[in-house]
């Protein structure tokens, strides 16, 4: 078995790559550049080699979730551009709404499969707890984003969801600030704030995954060169 050729030197806090133009330079910009150079070189962002166990079907779900998100964002952009009432009065608009609707369904199906896959593989091991946590936040933010989307459909479904959801939100004391009966408020939140938050979180999640690499299979833990027993499997 070969060494991890092509994986670069992506360690937790690796030394600065020789020849980096930011090496030794003072300032915040140079510090950020040094950090990015060390933690996320291009070969980590766009790897050409991966551990063979990544060939498992479970690794497909994350990529497919992102693919679905792409079409959620594309169809949502078209719907936002054409105006909130467009899809009720135009066949083409309704078709784009259908694309948005089914993309969201796909997004959630594959995100949940990805989440379960990561749970059963204990994907948080070996320093990946933050990656798991950002993923869970992504899941929760996605639910709220979808919820606001259902509220701004401008049809009976959105009316009914709003009228019923208000009681739970009011009970928390947030109803006056997150008023689900206020279309304008929900529209702005759905088409602007949450998509930006979601996209940033996805980027952060991908960076976390790429910078640390995928976790080793359970039962085949990382054993440091020191010869001591592995920490990765011991606490499972």
């Amino acid at each position, binding site marked *: 078995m070969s060494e991890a050729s092509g994986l670069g030197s992506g360690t937790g806090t690796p030394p600065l790559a020789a020849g980096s133009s930011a090496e030794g330079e003072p300032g915040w910009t140079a510090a950020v550049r040094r950090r990015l150079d060390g933690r996320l070189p291009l070969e980590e962002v766009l790897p*050409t080699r991966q551990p*063979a166990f990544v060939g498992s079907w479970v690794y497909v779900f994350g*990529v497919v979730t992102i693919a679905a998100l792409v079409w959620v964002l594309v169809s949502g952009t078209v719907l936002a551009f054409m105006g909130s009432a467009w899809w009720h009065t135009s066949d083409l608009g309704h078709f784009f709404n259908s694309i948005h609707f089914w993309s969201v369904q796909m997004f959630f199906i594959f995100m949940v499969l990805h989440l379960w896959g990561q749970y059963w593989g204990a994907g948080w091991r070996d320093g990946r707890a933050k990656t*798991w946590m950002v993923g869970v936040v992504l899941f929760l933010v996605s639910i709220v984003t979808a919820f606001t989307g259902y509220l701004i459909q401008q049809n009976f479904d959105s009316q009914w969801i709003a*009228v019923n959801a208000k009681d739970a939100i009011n009970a928390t004391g947030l109803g006056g600030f997150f008023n689900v009966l206020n*279309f304008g408020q929900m529209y702005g939140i759905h088409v602007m704030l949450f998509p930006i938050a979601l996209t940033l979180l996805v980027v952060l999640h991908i960076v976390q995954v790429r910078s640390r690499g995928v976790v080793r299979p359970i*039962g*085949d833990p990382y054993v440091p060169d020191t010869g001591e027993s592995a920490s990765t499997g011991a606490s*499972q």
Partner: protein
Amino acid sequence: MNGRRPKIDKTDYYRGIRMTPYDLIKEISIATVGILVAVLILSAVLSSPDIPSATIQAWAKSDPVDFVTTAASELAGQTTTAQYGPPYTTGSGSVQSIGPIEPQVWAGVHVAVNAPLDFVLQPLSQATVGDQTLASALTTFNNASAAQQQKWLATYNQALGSAKLVDNEVSVPSGDYGPVPVLMSRLLTLARSGGLDALLLTSEHFYQTDFSKPLLFLSDGGYFPGLAQAQDLTGSQWGMMNETGRYPGQAWLWLFTLWYQVPPIGSASNADLLVVVVMTVLSLGLLLVPFIPGLRDVPRWIPVHKLIWRQHYRSMTK
């Protein structure tokens, strides 16, 4: 399985693992095109749901007795909205708390709704132009004492129990209702014309996007929940995660909806707050799985991972 990130060189981390060629861009491209094809097929074949909005106009036309009964109750301040509590009113009818924990009360009124004024008297006052009978009835009602107003409304609301539709008007047995029948008749006419839908949206601004008042008014009647019942959308029908028609809804809310079906929680007067608390705790649990003994160990105890990495374990055996 702790969540701390050890300082491990990735080359060292994958020591002993066979590395294979991998084309990330190709994988993403195939996934993106594949999802697009699937979504296009689903959209073309199944379309998406769009049941038209309920309107106060449709309500007044299809069930005028329910409309008038609701409007009279709004005027009497006896509806759910009129007595709701924060963030709409200072009442306590729908205030939920857990012991001394009352976030709804602490937050206070931020979307103020005065049901008699906002839903009935104000729209009627805007419709008095050219209608002297209505103007006179409004003046009579407004000048009467609160006790007299409540007496008229109580008698009228009781009579609505035997109301009939005569010549497309809501008719009740004779009684001392003061100006209330005129007010209700004019409000019904206004609602049937579609004018009330618009008047409930008006404020000091030209542009309107806040539908709080018309939605609250709709929700106080029996017509609106009846439409939902027909679409299998009520709480007892797992309505939160259902969609109109035969489409998938917010299936990801299944756990949130589940608690409303569990009697001790679902039947409690503070069910919404209890469910929110339960879901907050569960969400925190999911977030903190890497740090919770037992929960983080389940993947080792139940060997689903042997399916996930089947090929890898086979290669290890060899």
